[in-house]
């Protein structure tokens, strides 16, 4: 039994993932064990340590705001599972 009680359906909902009840039970138990293990981080005094987002010190990379060659409409739509009228097609979102 894990020390961590996780609301797995909430995480799944945020992640836009449909889970079967079996999947939900499995992931809840597995993630609980993984999070138990992560308590190892509590051994260290991390409060005053600066966080690292990237290992290499590269910041605020800029480029000129100018047009450059890109996909044609047909190329951009070539991998779309559904398209019509030169646009991506999605299920209806307004009544």
């Amino acid at each position: 039994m894990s020390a961590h009680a996780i609301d797995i359906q909430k995480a799944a909902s945020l992640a836009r993932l449909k889970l079967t009840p079996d999947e939900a039970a499995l992931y809840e138990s597995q993630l609980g064990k993984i999070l138990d293990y992560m308590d190892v981080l509590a051994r260290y005094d991390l409060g005053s340590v600066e966080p690292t987002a990237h290992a290499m010190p590269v910041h605020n990379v800029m480029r000129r705001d100018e047009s450059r060659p890109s996909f044609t409409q047909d190329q951009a739509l070539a991998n779309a599972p559904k398209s019509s009228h030169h646009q991506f097609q999605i299920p209806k979102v307004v009544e």
Partner: protein
Amino acid sequence: MSLANETLASLRRRLAAREISPADIIRDLAAAIEAKNPSVGAYLSWDVDAAVTEAEQTDTSLPLGGVPIAIKDNINVTGQPCTCGSKILAENYRSPYDATSIRQLRAGGALPFGRLNMDEFAMGSSTENSALGVTRNPWDLDRIPGGSSGGSASSVASATAIAALGSDTGGSIRQPAALCGVVGVKPTYGRVSRFGLVAFASSLDQIGTLTKTVEDSALVLNHLCGHDPLDSTSLNEPVPDFAAALGRDIKGLRIGLPKEYFISGIHPAVADAVRAAIKTLESLGARVEEISLPHTDAGVSTYYILAPAEASANLARFDGVRYGHRTANATDILDHYFSSRAEGFGPEVKRRILLGTYVLSSGYYDAYYLKAQRARTLIRRDFEEAFQKVDVIVSPTAPSPAHKMGELKNNPLQAYLEDVFTIPANLAGLPAMSVPSGFAEEGGKKLPVGIQIIGKALDEVTMLRVAHAFEQASGLSHLAP
């Protein structure tokens, strides 16, 4: 002998002498793949006719002219599939563009040929998480090739590829290289453009090489590395000639052995291979000393918070609209997202998306994600201090030789712990590689073991020089099962 068995360097010499043509190499590789892929399963797809046509047009006067390179199936090559080992991209996806790494290899004369199996979205260390096929270790077909670049390692080990590209987020080049007895190099973070590599964990991912020899890796890295304006994390640093640095001796070079990496639980054959490697390096004149990386035991936790967090954001792009699998019967737009993703992603990817979403969610961000980012700083500092004293760090690549297929399938935490030696270099952004260093005997089969060499940031040259000196002295080069 089939040209498929040769090294890249040897093929280049024969191409330059006009003894052979690029199309000859493709034909020999195609025959080798036909013969071995049914059992090894390194390749998901390969197009011989297109490659022969391309081969006939390559400029063999270029440094990599006419050499085919097999590509992990998460790097985009125009017109080819790019499945990432996932059902979500398996149906119809064709890359509309070349990754920068591919564009640079082509500029050097190389030819991308064949798509290699991998753990789905590079999440795993066994290639068993591929939704599209089984890949086996050429040294023992009952065992895993490692992962996530398992197809890359097994293709080179089984002589069905001359060289291969892989990607390494927490060891995904080095660990399969060790398990399959080949050379695997992860350059410094930012050395190789990630543009066109399907993102898993953007702050950790790096493209690299899997080859039969250290020299072959150096030859490919000469073209792979370099600044790319299309990747804002790409480093604008000069790229040395990596191959030119090979062959220099390593007398007086300082090599650190992190005491925290020689833990209980290491397979005896791995410990023996590392001890033997250290003796070899000492006999070559290197000065070996013990060092400490005190935050090593925070590595796995830090990584398995940060990487899934980044993955959960990166994989949000799979919405079933622009590309990838789309559910057939959605009732509304939300159901379209929930069902398309549930049908397309496999279990390990779902596990990591859920973990990543959880550690980023309101109320847990500080407890997990921010804490892991702070721990990452401590791990990075460990290396900064160690590299005040030594030039490279040597360790085992993986705690054990290749496991049997299925052995870790139902224990994700145990599988994660196998990455303990490779993860820190990703967290710190350092170059690291694996070279073959011996064998373990299991059930009458020889299983390769590797040592890892970690270099200072941007100092691939010293790392490769040590690897090359070791390879020449040990004779563990260009191994074949």
